[in-house]
């Protein structure tokens, strides 16, 4: 995914000596951040409309990407058809999860959304292992091989694609929330579901729609990430965790702060991997999360002060 994965930590000083090197690492982080931000939109929408967290969100993206790989490589479907079927599967899984499982959690069982979606995560992962296999597979190129060099900085088409999709989706979501009837309904439901119902908003249908949209976002994210890495039953898990961390740092009931946190986390992640090696981001993110959660004002971290829709 990131070219500097191959760099040894002792190259740090050498890299810092060249401005283009530092720009390269930061740009790579912003690209990752754009992908986090795009993926995070689905988490934020679901949380804001129903105050629920979907632990299986990443695996819905995995089903789209790994499933489409299986369809075109093992079954022999045309790539475009396979990708469309993969995306449709993710959307259906998200919708069914809301209708068959989430909707049935009794109101007083606060926190059971985490438990049952953890169950869906296990189901999807094990299902993928049985049907698609357990090995890592190369996925679609999606412009990864088309590269240009600008002032010593490498940029490939996939990076541009990810940034364009990420930024466009963030802006489109904000506009939709602010300036459309559906967005207004969503914000009203998030504010007070009972009042929203009393003015004729079908909150139940709205929640299902949001879950379906989150399934679509997960699918596109899974495909984009798969094109930068490879696909297997577990490749979305670290990505999901980091996305949740960005949401947690920025605040799940807000919009711009978590999006900015997603970009910030992408850059932090990128530098951590450069400095500590390819797997160095896990401890670095753990330390960051602990420091921020310890220092954050109490109102940011205590869920019981948050109104539930």
């Amino acid at each position, binding site marked *: 995914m990131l070219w500097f994965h191959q760099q040894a930590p002792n190259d740090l000083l050498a890299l810092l000596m060249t401005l283009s090197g530092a720009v390269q690492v930061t740009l790579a982080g912003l690209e990752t951040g754009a992908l986090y931000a795009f993926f995070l939109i689905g988490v934020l929408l679901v949380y804001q409309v129903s105050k629920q*967290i979907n632990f299986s969100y990443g695996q819905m993206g995995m089903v789209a990407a790994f499933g489409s790989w299986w369809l075109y490589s093992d079954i022999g479907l045309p790539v475009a058809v396979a990708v469309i079927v993969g995306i449709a599967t993710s959307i259906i899984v998200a919708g069914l999860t809301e209708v068959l*499982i989430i909707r*049935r*959690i*009794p109101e*007083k*069982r*606060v*926190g*059971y959304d*985490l*438990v*049952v979606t*953890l*169950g*869906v*995560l*296990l*189901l*999807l*992962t*094990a*299902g993928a*292992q*049985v049907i698609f296999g357990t090995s890592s597979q190369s996925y679609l190129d999606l412009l990864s091989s088309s590269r240009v060099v600008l002032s010593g900085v490498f940029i490939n088409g996939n990076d541009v694609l990810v940034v364009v999709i990420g930024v466009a989706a963030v802006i489109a979501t904000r506009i939709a929330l602010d300036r459309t009837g559906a967005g207004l309904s969503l914000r009203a439901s998030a504010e007070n579901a009972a009042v929203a119902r009393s003015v004729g908003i079908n909150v139940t249908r709205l929640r299902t729609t949001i879950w379906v949209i989150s399934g679509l976002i997960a699918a596109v994210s899974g495909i984009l990430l798969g094109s930068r890495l490879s696909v297997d039953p577990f490749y979305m*898990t*670290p990505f999901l*965790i980091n996305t*949740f*961390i960005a949401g*947690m740092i920025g605040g*799940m009931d807000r919009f711009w702060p978590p999006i900015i946190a997603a970009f910030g986390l992408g850059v932090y992640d990128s530098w951590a991997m450069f400095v500590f*090696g390819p*797997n160095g981001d*896990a*401890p670095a*993110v*753990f330390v960051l*999360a*602990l420091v921020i*959660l*310890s220092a954050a004002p*109490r109102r940011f*971290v*205590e*869920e*019981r002060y948050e109104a539930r829709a």
Partner: protein
Amino acid sequence: MTDAPLADETEAQKAEAAMGGATSFRTRRWRLLEAVLLLGLVTALYGGLSAYWLVIVAQVCLYTVATMGLDILFGRTGQLSLSHASFFGLGAYVAALASAHGISYGLQLAIVLLIAVLAGAIVAVPTLRLSGMRLALVTLLFGQVLQWFLITEVSITGGSEGMTVTPLSIAGFNTGEPHVAFVVSLALALVATVVTAQLSRTQAGRRMLAVRDSELAASACGIDLPRTKIQAFILAAIYAGFAGWLYAYVVGFVAPDTFSLFPSAYFLVAVILGGAGTVLGSWLGGAYIVLAPQLFAIAGQPNLFAILGGALLIVVALLMPGGLAGGISALQRRALSLQVRQPAGPNGR
């Protein structure tokens, strides 16, 4: 995590109170019957099982101990943790590394205790201000960091290939011998069972239940929330640490995969499926984690274990909040109440 079933003692008291003091004799008779059945079961297992299945049952005992740890944290205190397999793994790797360096068993146990207390505190202290998703995420990150360490520090841990562990050997008894492994594991499980069952009768245990049911109400009653949560985290880590330590000696091998996110999720499945807040539930959950994969492997479908785990987590969480232990307890109460309602015979019996 509200609406979990009541803990052991409260459950029993509720049953007795509902049916009157006259049933206490019958309740005692039930318990005597249970004890006799348990003794018979242990004897039958010891004498009747093959070497392979004795080791499997030993693992059931050890997973039960670890499940009890998570039950204290999640079932009795309401704190969701996704790093329980990491605590289990810490104990296992202490055994692997310490035995490789010839450290005495007494010192090893002290190290396990120290590391469990430290690990429990490391996860607990920053999460005192958190709950729900935030808490789950921090515990998840802790597990990721441990995985990172186990996989990257190849020279210390053997990396993803894992390490072999020389069996525990004291006074001529060796855990490489299945009967010894069974007895030692059972002994640890029985000690853990007694301690956990007594926990509900202690001040600390009652504080945990109060925190689980309502942090606000518990706080209003003067309960120190941070202290109670830290105690629960540390106890959970100690249970898992000791279980993991013995697990390494019984199985003879440790690898990072055994202690990753998915095994942590299986511990959660075990607690919820067995029945949160009960020692019987922990036994049922521990048996599920170890025996279900074996049964699926025998049936030629090893991957179905994870699918079943996911499905059970959803179904039991939604439809059977008391888990299997809750169902058994309900049946037991029904049987007792039927006995009470039986009309007296001609001789007044």
